[in-house]
């Protein structure tokens, strides 16, 4: 039974009798008296003799126009027709994790999965194909395809570089796209948590347990004036294995070691390295999975803050300088300042200068012993606690307009904060050292470390230099256009309308990121390493087939739009109509 999307369009059908009326009035028989039918005798005799077919009284173009109008009216109603479908669409969830590349070429689960898919399509017909890669986040590999051969380009994008495969999330997406209609297929190297049984889902695992050594942890962090390197290698295989570890920096071999590890044992290696040592590369010998046999560690990021101390009181100035020096985050240079510690009424100039205004001590300061109330979510109070300290401040003080309290003693604001629209932050501090004990505790440098770290995090660039694949890499650009140079040599230009973006990183290796104008270009190098112990654990890889699809020939009636066919048919008849008119010399 047909259904109509816009049944009111049937009103347009009044054009049909209108057209008939026009033709009737135009083509009805005109009476015409002639002197004699003698000259028409030929036609009369022919008709009576039945040898000649008399032309229809309604010309052909009338019927064509009637048909065109009827088709257009029908098309305007948006007709849909119930048509039987004997095949289902197939949505394939492909495990996009690195473990799908384990093994020699041709025997990798990825290769076997493609072969398996081709094999399945020979056994069973599908209406269409849709591929979803299940990595850290599920992603569509392309548009829906009618034939499997159209998917070759999409298979190219199935790179299997993800540190984990979130198959359940991808299956959720597939089910939403399939509308309870599509057959679902999971091609992976792991067993399902629960066998799917009879229905729409079929789960095929094509993995194989293999011995595999892997880096599961790698870090290069700031350790005073130098960097400290941590490497952790695991053997998550079912058997004891041996492998070799090489650590090189450029052409210098820093470490070489033969590792023999029992099942599920790890080996941790830490060593210091000069901060100026360039990129460091650690490799393991070839094994089943190549992706986890190499890590790169670039020098750790040392974000330092240029601080200017604009305090005239020598004693207080010294206290501030010592406090800043204790954090290790203060740059030697102070121009242009990124943080100004001052006592003036006005905020510091400079679009990058944050301000910490140390309010002058009152003549009769009050000693607060608590309770101190802190904004726990504020960057300044991270890890800070004030038990048993004395804070000398201003009795009866209130916070200035626009400033919100960060630390208070009762209702007396001690530290306040006012963010500005251009991103600068202005802070006030009421602290009288002579009447306080906070600066004699470990919490004092912690407070200043929080302040400088907060300021450093707000600077353009990366926060860390070495990252784990699969985690977000935040970047504060110096310009609204960012160029990302990837390990495979490709470049990607990103638009950064906000103050911070997430860099699209999906391959392990060393990246470069550039932003800023040509005169003030900021370039940074960072490393992304495949460090996923779960994924490197090939002992869990299995082969198997779980779940069954329903019968192929299940017939369903679905509403399908027939509008394009109607319009095409109307166009074809219009062409025929034009041909008829042209043949008759333009007369209807």
């Amino acid at each position, binding site marked *: 039974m047909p259904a109509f999307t816009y049944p009111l369009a049937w009103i347009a059908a009044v054009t049909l009798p209108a057209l008939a009326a026009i033709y009737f009035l135009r083509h009805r028989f005109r009476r015409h008296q002639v*002197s004699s039918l003698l000259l028409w005798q030929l036609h009369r005799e022919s008709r009576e003799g039945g040898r000649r077919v*008399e032309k*229809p009284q309604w010309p052909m173009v009338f019927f064509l126009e009637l048909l065109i109008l009827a088709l257009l009216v029908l098309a305007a109603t948006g007709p849909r027709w119930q048509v039987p479908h004997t095949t289902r669409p197939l949505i394939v969830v492909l495990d996009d994790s690195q473990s799908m590349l384990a093994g020699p070429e041709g025997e990798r689960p990825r290769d076997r999965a493609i072969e398996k898919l081709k094999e399945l399509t020979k056994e069973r017909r599908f209406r269409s194909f849709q591929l979803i890669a299940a990595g850290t986040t599920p992603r569509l590999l392309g548009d829906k395809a009618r034939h499997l051969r159209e998917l070759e380009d999409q298979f190219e994008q199935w790179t299997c570089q993800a540190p984990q495969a979130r198959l359940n999330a991808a299956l959720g997406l597939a089910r939403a796209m399939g509308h309870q209609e599509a057959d679902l297929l999971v091609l992976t190297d792991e067993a399902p948590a629960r066998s799917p049984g009879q229905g729409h889902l079929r789960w095929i695992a094509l993995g194989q347990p293999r011995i595999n050594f892997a880096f599961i942890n790698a870090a290069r962090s700031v350790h005073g004036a130098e960097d400290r390197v941590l490497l952790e290698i695991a053997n998550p295989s079912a058997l004891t294995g041996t492998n070799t570890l090489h650590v090189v920096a450029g052409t210098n071999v820093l470490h070489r070691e033969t590792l023999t590890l029992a099942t599920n044992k790890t080996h941790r290696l830490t060593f210091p390295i000069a901060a100026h040592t360039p990129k460091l590369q650690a490799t393991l010998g070839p094994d089943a999975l190549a992706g986890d046999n190499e890590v790169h560690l670039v020098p750790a990021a040392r974000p330092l803050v240029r601080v200017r101390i604009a305090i005239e009181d020598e004693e207080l100035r010294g206290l501030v300088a010592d406090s800043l020096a204790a954090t290790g985050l203060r740059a030697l240079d102070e121009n242009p300042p990124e943080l100004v510690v001052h006592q003036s009424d006005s905020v510091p100039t400079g679009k990058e200068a944050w301000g910490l205004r140390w309010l002058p001590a009152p003549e009769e300061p009050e000693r607060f012993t608590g309770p101190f109330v802190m904004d726990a979510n504020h960057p300044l109070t991270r890890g800070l606690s004030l038990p048993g300290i004395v804070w000398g401040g201003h009795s009866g003080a209130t916070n200035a307009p626009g400033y919100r309290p960060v630390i208070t003693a009762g209702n007396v604001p001690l530290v306040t904060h006012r963010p500005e629209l251009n991103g600068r932050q202005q802070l006030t501090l009421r602290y009288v050292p002579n009447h306080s004990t906070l600066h004699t505790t470990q919490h004092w440098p912690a407070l200043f470390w929080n302040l400088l770290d907060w300021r450093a995090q707000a600077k353009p660039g990366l926060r860390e230099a070495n990252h784990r694949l699969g985690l977000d890499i935040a970047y504060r650009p110096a310009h609204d256009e960012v160029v990302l140079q990837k390990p495979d040599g490709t470049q990607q230009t990103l638009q950064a309308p906000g103050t911070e973006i997430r860099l699209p990183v999906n391959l392990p290796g060393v990246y470069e990121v550039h932003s800023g104008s040509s005169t003030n270009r900021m370039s940074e190098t960072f490393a992304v390493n495949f460090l996923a112990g779960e994924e490197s654990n090939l002992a869990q890889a299995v082969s198997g087939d779980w779940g069954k699809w329903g019968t192929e020939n299940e017939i369903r009636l679905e509403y399908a739009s027939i509008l394009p066919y109607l319009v095409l048919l109307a166009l074809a008849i219009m062409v025929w109509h034009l041909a008829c008119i042209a043949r008759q010399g333009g007369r209807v």
Partner: protein
Amino acid sequence: MNYRQSLIAGEQMGLRYALALPQATLAGQRGEHLGRRAGSSVDFQDYRDYQPGDDLRHIDWNAYARTDQLTVKLFREEVQPHLDLVLDTSASMALADSPKAQALHQLAALFATAAANARCSHAVWVTGEGFQRVANDTQPPSAWGELSLGGARSFEEAHGLLPPRLRRQGIRIVISDLFWPGDPLPTLRKLTEGAAAVTLVQLLAPSDLEPPKPGNVQLEDSETGETLSLYIDTTIQEQYRKTLQRLQQSWDHAAQQTGAELVTLIADNLQGSLRSLEECRTLEPA
């Protein structure tokens, strides 16, 4: 315009013309034109031997004195030529929405006036239940009785019932649309038999020349009332024109065989068509 006004208009048109007379074959009552036979005019024609009964006043006594033979002088006969106007007054000549009937009246009056200008007598015959004379047809056209158009009989049928009594050696002018079924030759032979000259004037309406425009048309025969429903397109229009052409060719062929002249006139442009009558020497300027 009624028939009388048409006749008067035709009479006025005819004042400019005179009927062209074929000298060689003229015959008629005594009149002002020289006939082909011997007569009583002053023009000497020939001699012949005297025969009893000849007028003694025509004996050439000088010749008798010389030859001792009675010889009679023959003089040219003086005759008055006669025009028989044979009009097809069947219903087709009164075709609705056409100037055919008006043109018929004007043409008849024109020829009668032209005949009078040529000092010819004339008679007017019309079709009906046989051929009949028009009342007062020997008088000027404005005095004629009504030419009753719309007769159910065709020209051929009327001729078969009662043919016109046409004067021998007279001039005959037939005005008709010539839409007669069958071979025109037998009827034309009868019309031309014993005539000094015969002119066939085919008078056609514009609608006789051009078929109706394309579309559904119910054709009605003006004489029989018979109808024919047709869808007319360019092909049928072309066929109609070819059929009309064949009909005219058959008449032209028959006219050549019988020595008649065929002239086709268009009813709505009568004035302009008269030149063709001069060209075929039926009329000449008065």
